[in-house]
């Protein structure tokens, strides 16, 4: 049995419980044990633009919690993954490490930071995941949205192709679903500029919603709570601005994976999806 410290961050436990629920239930099926990180805070990313050092110290403190637990970290949010990975690199620099120690923190055991999806890809593997699929979702056409900080910057990760990523597509194929190929796969959701210029953020989100519609996708698959805020919570705003109807469900990858494992729709939190996935559930025969 594999064991990890689960880092939740801010958005997931309060605004994306279906992501957390489905991730935990899928992990249980795959015999992965998650231990919660007591006292973990915000990763620090939201104020990196204000002061990177403050943000990095917040991230490093979270790493110290997992390090004391002697467990590698699994994250659910792309930006948390980048922020924690960045802090881990920073801890190797003397000046930063001195400040970290001054605050009374310690890093006793070397640990790794991985996004949940990367952990599935690297530590569990496609073949093993396939062996758990009881209900192949052959009837579904989906498009994968990776988000930026899942594979960029490469100097933090060295994982997947930063121009044309493919790991999530492979993991989606494992469920039996057909993944639709498209250009601009690495396009940013716009979430980071939502608080600065909403018009711009909505324009950016609309770009991929439009691609999904033109490809007749049954759902857009996300692996980051902030990307989902852009594509799902703000879908109405994009519809109003561009006078178009999308009605496009946005699912988290472990939700789809859970359905393919034969988990029922409540175990993957389908009723919390804000764009109702009724047609998708009808298609797979789980209403």
């Amino acid at each position, binding site marked *: 049995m594999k064991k990890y410290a689960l880092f939740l961050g801010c958005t997931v436990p309060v605004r994306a419980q279906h992501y957390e629920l489905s991730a935990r239930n899928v992990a249980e099926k795959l015999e992965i044990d998650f231990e919660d990180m007591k*006292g973990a*805070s915000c990763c620090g990313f*939201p*104020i990196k633009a204000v002061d990177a050092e403050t943000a990095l*110290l*917040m991230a490093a403190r979270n790493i110290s919690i997992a390090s004391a637990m002697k467990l590698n970290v699994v994250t659910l949010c792309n930006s948390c993954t980048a922020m924690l990975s960045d802090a881990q690199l920073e801890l190797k620099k003397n000046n930063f490490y001195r400040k970290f120690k001054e605050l009374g923190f310690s890093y006793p055991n070397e640990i790794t930071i991985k996004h949940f999806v990367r952990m599935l890809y690297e530590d569990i593997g496609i073949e093993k995941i396939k062996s758990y699929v009881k209900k192949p979702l052959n009837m579904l056409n989906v498009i994968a949205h990776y988000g930026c900080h899942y594979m960029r910057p490469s100097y933090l990760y060295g994982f997947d192709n930063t121009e044309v990523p493919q790991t999530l597509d492979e993991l989606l194929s494992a469920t039996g679903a057909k993944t639709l190929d498209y250009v601009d796969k690495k396009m940013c959701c716009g979430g980071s500029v939502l608080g*600065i*210029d909403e018009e711009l953020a909505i324009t950016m989100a609309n*770009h991929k919603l439009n691609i999904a519609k033109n490809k007749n996708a049954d759902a857009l698959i996300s692996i980051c709570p902030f990307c989902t805020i852009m594509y799902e919570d703000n879908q109405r705003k994009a519809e109003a601005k561009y006078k178009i109807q999308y009605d496009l469900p946005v699912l988290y990858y472990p939700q789809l994976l859970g359905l393919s494992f034969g988990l029922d729709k409540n175990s993957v939190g389908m009723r919390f999806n804000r764009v109702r996935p009724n047609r998708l559930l009808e298609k797979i025969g789980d209403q």
Partner: protein
Amino acid sequence: MINLKDADPHFVWEIIKQEGDKHLLKCFGCSDCAASCPVRYFDERYNPRKIIRLTLLGMKQAVLSSPFLWFCAHCHACTERCPQGIPVAELINSIKNYAVKNGYCPEGYKLQLDLLKKLGRLYEVEDFDLKKRQKIGLPAIDKTIPEVERILRYTGIEKVIKK
């Protein structure tokens, strides 16, 4: 219009000090960053190359007071393509950090900082949330994490913003 009479020769070194590196000096202005930028694709008012060139010219006020500096989504598309190996998104972030020290902090970030000081997280965890979590079988989470305030006091970031 750029008037070099307004240039501040110290600005380049102030940004280098902020980034703790000399990436800024490596830029030869090829514009790969601007060509790769998803924000610029939709809104030409944002241009990472222009921000870097103006910085190298010492146009301190023009760079720090520009609202478009904050349009960078920190997506790192530029970083991956820079032929000089500059982590462009980090360089822009350093310029943002320096703008904050000079009195230019967008209101949204001030609000986020207040929340982090008060809660240690970005969203308030209300009783409703805890009940909902319990109902669907998710473990309880801390409402506040006071340790974050201690970090904020240590770096003194609030004082910097209020200055």
